[in-house]
């Protein structure tokens, strides 16, 4: 990064030092040219995020014949739909915090392994594969192993412990959490690893030279440096499990209330017709949940940034 900046600097100086009147025009043109790089990204964001967001926000307040209504929002915030939001948040918090901590510990052990060692390579590659394994195939994998007549369930039953007689069910909220761990933990490993690599060995050595113990190093140096990344990664996991759809759908057929599945009922089913806008109201609710989560993240990050100063 440093090199890029210093390489760019002389050119910039030469440019602004160029003689001639239309310096302002040149500056504007240069400003535009510099902006040109972000145009594709801007267009992508506008079409891929902005436009759908506006459509959802407008649709949420439209009746089927196009007039303004609060009816959709009223339906979306009552009864099973409110319950759906509550369970979605509950599921996502658990399926973000627990894999977040476990993923951090695993990433730490990978990081401490010798650079270039086979174990390290395998662990990173495997995380990449597992983090992208989801949807219906994942649901099937778990149904076949931990389902009520799954392989592992049968082994456990043979050993005298049938988990289904001790309150466990793969088809419940806790079952869905277990399945989400499968891709959330490796995802956490992948995203937190670069942050761990940002911890310079020199800091550790400096702390040791000043007589800091391990816990003191983590409390005053490593922890605060990692905190913003850790929070960002947990937020990513939260979003990832909040929006996951196919796995839970294939495993529970909607018997537990989850907002993404309820949205699916309104938008792509062939049973309920003419209530698409209730689905949009639910979608707007999810946008708001993510916005609040990001707000909390910003506040926490500011606080942890203060520790860094």
């Amino acid at each position, binding site marked *: 990064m440093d090199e890029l900046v210093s390489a760019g600097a002389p050119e910039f100086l030469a440019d602004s030092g160029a003689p001639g009147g239309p310096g302002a025009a040149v500056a504007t043109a240069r400003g535009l040219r510099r902006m040109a790089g972000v145009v594709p990204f801007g267009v992508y964001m506008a079409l891929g995020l902005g436009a759908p967001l506006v459509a959802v926000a407008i649709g949420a307040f439209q009746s089927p014949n196009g007039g303004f209504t609060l009816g959709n929002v009223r339906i979306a915030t009552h009864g099973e739909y409110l319950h759906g939001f509550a369970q979605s948040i509950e599921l996502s918090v658990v399926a973000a915090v627990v894999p977040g901590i476990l993923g951090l510990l695993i990433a730490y052990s990978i990081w401490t392994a010798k650079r270039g060692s086979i174990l390290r390579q395998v662990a990173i590659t495997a995380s990449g594969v597992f983090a992208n394994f989801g949807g219906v195939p994942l649901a099937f994998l778990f149904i*076949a192993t931990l389902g009520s*007549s799954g392989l592992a369930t049968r082994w456990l039953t043979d050993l005298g412990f049938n988990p289904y007689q001790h309150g466990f069910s793969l088809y419940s909220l806790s079952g869905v959490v277990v399945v989400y761990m499968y891709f959330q933990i490796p995802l956490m490993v992948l995203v937190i690893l670069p942050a761990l690599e940002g911890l310079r060995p020199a800091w550790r050595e400096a702390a040791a030279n000043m007589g800091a113990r391990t816990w003191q190093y983590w409390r005053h140096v490593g922890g605060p440096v990692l905190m913003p990344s850790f929070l960002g990664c947990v937020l990513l996991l939260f979003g990832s499990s909040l929006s996951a759809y196919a796995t839970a759908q294939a495993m529970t*057929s909607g*018997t537990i209330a*989850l907002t993404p599945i309820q949205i699916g*009922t309104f938008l792509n089913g*062939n*049973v*309920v017709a003419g209530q698409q806008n209730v689905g949009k109201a639910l979608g707007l609710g999810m946008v708001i949940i993510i916005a609040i989560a990001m707000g909390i993240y910003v506040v926490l990050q500011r606080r942890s940034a203060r520790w860094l100063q």
Partner: protein
Amino acid sequence: MTAAKKEGQLNVITLPANWANYGTIMKDFTAKYGIKINDANPDGTSQDEINAVNQLKGQSRAPDVLDIGNSFAVKADAQGILAPYRVASWSDIPASAKASDGTYYADYGGYVAIGYNSAKVTTPPTSFADLLKPAYKNEVAINGNPTQAGAAFAAVYAAALANGGSFSNIAPGVAYFKKLHQVGNFVPVTGSAATMESGQTPILIWWDYLLASEAGPGVPGLKIVIPSDGHYAAYYDQAISKTAPDPAAARLWEEYLYTTTGQNLWLEGKARPIELPTLLSSSTVNETAYKALPAAPSTTLTFPTQAQQAAAAVIVSAQWPGV
């Protein structure tokens, strides 16, 4: 028929060759009348058919005839895009399964049935009440989320009929599945031919003709029974487009489908043709094909109205989470 031959072609839409025996049916029709069939978008949906009629209006490749889900037939009829036509055997189609003016009429369909793998399920279930017995622990599934999948919705409707509900009261069906879940028999995964084959859901409540055609090949011990306490049937519809470029060929096609040959060909494709009772009473039925499907109840066919279905869908989407 001369007019049809002069047109020389017929545009059909969304007819997969392996669905309800359509591959054979189309070949046989062409061989018999020398009329070429163009099958557009074989894997499309009912909505795709309506869109094609509206968008291709006036073009020579616009669809002539439709094979369409009932609720979509009603919708298309309301849009006024269907031409009325009554086939020769019109009176053999039950009044509840056709539009009185002939804009659409049932072609084939089936009943909600209990399919089970007799290799794993040793006590044969015959009713919804049976399925609550402890013998079927962790065995019963339906084909998905009833707030989204039509077949699963139909299963809840059938369960309602078996438990004191009616076409205008589906709540007992939801309550039934809640009970089935509580006793530990209901496995809430998306049941399919694959979950039956792998043994995760040895019992699957689904359409009888889909059990026979989809699950049959992979599950050697498959037995299909229509529950004695809840009969729920649904049929697809035939319709001719009002803007059909080949209207005579379209009418000839409909007549062909409603002959003994056409009806038996559907039956051979494991779909239950609407005029099956006539085939049976006149002993013109293909016996082998008939035996592949479970015996239909002798009660007369009745269907919920669109309004009843819409009201039921609202109830199910509000009550299903928490089952």
